[in-house]
């Protein structure tokens, strides 16, 4: 079994596992998070087959926009509000965005892994929706 086949099986298995976890989860917030992870692995399958434009579209539109709106909606109407998101999560998002901007200089792996770090703004694009989501949660909950 080649590495490519193994990678494909892992991606498809992850997509199936995340989808099942999303279905099994009773909490809408975690269900939405698992849905985002499923969409991420589906975008990964597109990238695996070399359709990078579809990967970008699915990542930015379905995960970056719709997925985040779903997460925000589900968190806003969550009955168990136990996550302290106000400060810690913003610091976490900023650290992730900083590390991911500096990480590509040290990356040294296979061709596919090399191809992603060469497009450095994608890390900032992934980190920005995370920060945007935190702000949206705050605004949405204050408005309720």
């Amino acid at each position, binding site marked *: 079994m080649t590495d490519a086949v193994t990678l494909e099986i892992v991606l498809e298995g992850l997509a*199936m596992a995340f989808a099942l976890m999303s279905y099994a989860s009773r909490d809408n917030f975690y269900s939405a998070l698992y849905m985002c992870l*499923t*969409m991420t692995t589906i975008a990964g399958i597109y990238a695996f087959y070399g359709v990078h434009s579809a990967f970008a579209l699915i990542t930015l539109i379905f995960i970056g*926009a719709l997925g985040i709106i*779903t997460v925000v*909606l589900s968190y806003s109407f969550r009955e168990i509000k136990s996550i302290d998101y106000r400060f810690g999560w913003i610091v976490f998002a900023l650290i992730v965005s900083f590390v991911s901007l500096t990480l590509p200089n040290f990356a040294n792996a296979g061709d596919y892994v090399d191809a992603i770090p060469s497009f450095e703004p994608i890390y900032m694009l992934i980190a920005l929706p995370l920060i945007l989501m935190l702000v949206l949660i705050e605004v949405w909950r204050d408005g309720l």
Partner: protein
Amino acid sequence: MEGWALIGLSLVLLVIGLLMLVSSRDLIRLLISLEFMFSAIFLSVLYTLNASGYEVLVTMIFTSCCELMVLVGVVVFFSRKFKTTSLEVKESD
């Protein structure tokens, strides 16, 4: 072999989306189930993707995005009116 795996995965996602749809008692869960079903369709398109299929894929992505945004708008207006996203009818109502 690869194509069958993709079709199988898209079928599984479609079934999960349908199960979630019929068992949902909440608008947000309905939204999640629709996103699962759209992702299943995207995967099935990947199996038949060729040079001219890319335009179809982009059109599908933007069309489904618009449909989901309409549902998001419905969720927002529903929640503003009823102060909840639950679809269950209470005894007092």
